[in-house]
Structure formats: C-alpha cells, structure tokens
C-alpha cells in the first residue's frame, strides 16, 4: 500500500508538472481572479488555454463517426468554460496544476458525452497507427519535463498492447468495449488488463 506516502509527495510535485513556473503562477493568478468573477481575467484565461482544451476535446471526439464533431467539441468546450467560471473558487493550487485542472474539466465533458452515445466503433487501425506514430516527436518535445519523462519511461515498461490501451483510453476516449473490439478480447479481459497496466504504472511511478 503506497498511497499514504505517495500522496503527499505527488501533491507537492503537482504544480511544477507541465509548464514553466511563470506560466503556472500566471494561470493560478488568473484562476484566482476568475473565482472573484473578474471577466477580463476570464477572457485572458480563455485566450491562454482554449486551444489546449479544444485540442484535447477534439482528439477525443475524432474518428468516432460523429457528425460535426468540431461543432460538438466547441459545445463541450463551452460547457467546460462555463463550469470553470462557476467552479474557479474550488480550484486548489496545492492539489493540482492549473492546466491539469482545466483540461480535466474539458476531458470529462468529452468522455461523458461519448459514453452517453449509443456504442459506435472507433475507426480502429487508423487511430492506432496515428497514435503510435505521434509518440517520438511528442516525447522529444517533452524531454525537459521530468514528470512527463518519468511517465513515459513507466509506460515503456508496459507490454505494448497495454501501453496502447492506456494511451487510446486517455488520449482518444476509447471505452472498454472499443478496446475489446480492437484487441479482440472479451470486455472483462480488457478490464483485467487495464487494471494490471494501471497498477504497474502506479508502482513504477512511485518507485
């Protein structure tokens, strides 16, 4: 059981995760002002972060056979920013980095949307290739970021299929059923594999 010890360390590390310190300080400041219903700060926050949120949501909705998925993505990002406006006061800089907090709201909006749709099969092979081939460049770009590097190292320790499953789920919004079809396994097996992969990842990250 590593949670109790892992917990506080991870929390302290969180704010330094994904962006230079100055950006984090600026986003923290903007969020604080948004919590006080500062509309100029909100517009600035939007200008700084909307491409990230939109890119995240668009990727999750892509290749799902949705009509006008760009329009849907805008709707979801719209709801996300309304949520951000309403919940900014709940943001706790000690617990999460601001960009993670913002992206999480948008990601959950997109995944909630997908899960409410009748099951439709993602266009498998293309996505798989696209996901796989996007690795190297992105990784090079992230080399200076310790947390990211560590996560990628730990992902590399997973079996290839399990690593792909984690990536397809997190980045492309694939459900267990989607993964079951793609990897030609029963849903329960997928669940077991996912749990093993996640536990292995957690163990590696806390070592």
């Amino acid at each position, binding site marked *: 059981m590593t949670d109790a010890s892992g917990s506080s360390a991870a929390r302290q590390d969180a704010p330094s995760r994904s962006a230079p310190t100055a950006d984090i300080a600026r986003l923290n400041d903007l969020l604080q002002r948004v919590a006080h219903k500062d509309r100029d700060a909100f517009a600035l926050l939007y200008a700084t972060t909307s491409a990230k949120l*939109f890119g995240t949501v668009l990727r999750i909705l892509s290749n799902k056979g949705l009509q006008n998925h760009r329009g849907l993505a805008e709707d979801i990002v*719209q709801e996300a920013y309304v949520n951000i406006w309403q919940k900014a006061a709940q943001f706790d800089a000690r617990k999460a980095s601001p960009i993670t907090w913002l992206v999480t709201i948008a990601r959950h909006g997109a995944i909630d949307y997908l899960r409410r749709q009748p099951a439709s099969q993602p266009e498998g092979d293309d996505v798989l290739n696209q996901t796989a081939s996007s690795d190297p460049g992105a990784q090079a770009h992230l080399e200076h970021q310790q947390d990211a590097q560590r996560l990628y190292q730990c992902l590399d320790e997973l079996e290839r299929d399990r690593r792909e499953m*984690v990536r397809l789920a997190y980045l492309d919004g694939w459900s267990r059923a989607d993964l079951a079809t793609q990897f030609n396994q029963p849903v329960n097996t997928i669940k077991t594999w996912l749990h093993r992969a*996640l536990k292995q*990842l957690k163990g590696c990250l806390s070592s």
Partner: protein
Amino acid sequence: MNEHDDLDMLAAEFVLGTLDSRERALVEQRRQQEPELEALIELWQQRLAPLGDEVQDIVPGPGLLARIEQRIETLENGTQQPTTSTREEDNRVVALHKRLRFWQWSTGLTSAAALVLVGVLLAQILQPSTPQSFVAVFQQNDQQPAFMLTVDLESRQLQVQAVTAEPLSGQSYQLWIKEPSLGPKPHSVGVLTDDMRLQSTALQEYDPDLLRNATFGISVEPEGGSPTGQPTGPAIHGYLYSTADEDGQHSL
C-alpha cells in the same frame, strides 16, 4: 485485491475514461461524499496528466468566447436552466412544452393592436436521412398552418413559407427567436418582406445548438416591424410537426 485496491482502480479507470456512463455518474456522486475516493482521483489525474501534453493545441472558432460569455451572462441572471446538446429525447419534448408555455406567457399580455397572432415551435426532427433539418409550423387561430419555417442547421439557412397566411396591408409579419442563452426576451430574426419571405441567412449568426433549442415566433407588427424591439402581439399556439413519419404531429 482488497477494498482499497478496488477503490483505487475505480478512481484510475474514472480518470482514464473507460468507465461506462452509469459508473461515471456514480463516481461523480460518490466523490462528493468520499474524501478517500476524491483523493485517489486527484492522484490519478496527476499521474496521467503528462500524457495530455502531447495533444496538439487547436484554436477553436472565433465566436466561441462570445458564446461562452453570453451563456454565463444568462446563467448569472438566473433566467433559465442550461440546456445541453446531449439532452435525452424524452426530456426534449418536455422542454419544448416548457418553452412553448414560456413563450405564451411572456407574450400573453397582449396589445389590442395585434391582429393575427401566431404561435410557434421549432421541432427537432429526428430523421436519420437529414438529421440537420428542422421544421416549425406556425398555426393561426387554432385552424390552419399559417407559416412553415425550415431550418438547415448545418448551413444555418432558413426558409419561410407562407401556407395560408396572406400579406397584410399596412402591417408586417416578424419572426422572433427565443433561447435561454439569448436572455429572457425574444430577439428579432427579421421582418418578412411583402412577398412573405425572409433572407435565408438571417440565422447565420446563431450557433446550431442554440437553434436546436430555440423557440420561434411570428407576430403581426406595424409595417416595417415592431417599434419596440419586442413582439407587440402574443403567440397563441404551437404544434410540433415531424416529417419523419405521418403520425409525427404532436399536439401540445
């Protein structure tokens, strides 16, 4: 596998996104009351968040900030519940009922100047072949359709067709749109020309999702349109009209 492991895997899969709709709703509910689950979720968010760094930034459409601000404006003024593009079909009919009644109430105190009053509802037509096409029927005095409004959400083109309505000497028909994010009052879409038409691009500035949730109305106004910027006549009735099947007409 103990209880804590189960909870941790629930948190992990919630963050990963692989839970189904029902499980996700349950976790959303439980995390409010269970600090342990909430803490586990936060930890998984931190663990997996670096993956998101490789997602390519994509700039959304130029009008999105304005739409967001408008939506916030509406919510802050406490006018209506937010609507979402993912509303269940059953709720949609109820919501249309509500919007219709809202429209009736808000225009129900009428000025005597109004001659013909037209109620309206925009119906979402669930038609697999043309899912972006919507039709509203405007009925006059509970008798016959007076106008039909067709909206193509994809292109945001509208077409108004007079069915039994006749041009009125010295007066004009005016089309209105009402939707929570636009505020509590109807907005003018445009005044119909003498040959009972309206520019097909009159709805161009509205977002398709907004149009899908909107209520439309036609009122009779002094020539050239309402002098007040608001309908001066009430809307009486609205009927949903579905082209999807012959029995698709829902009387409200």
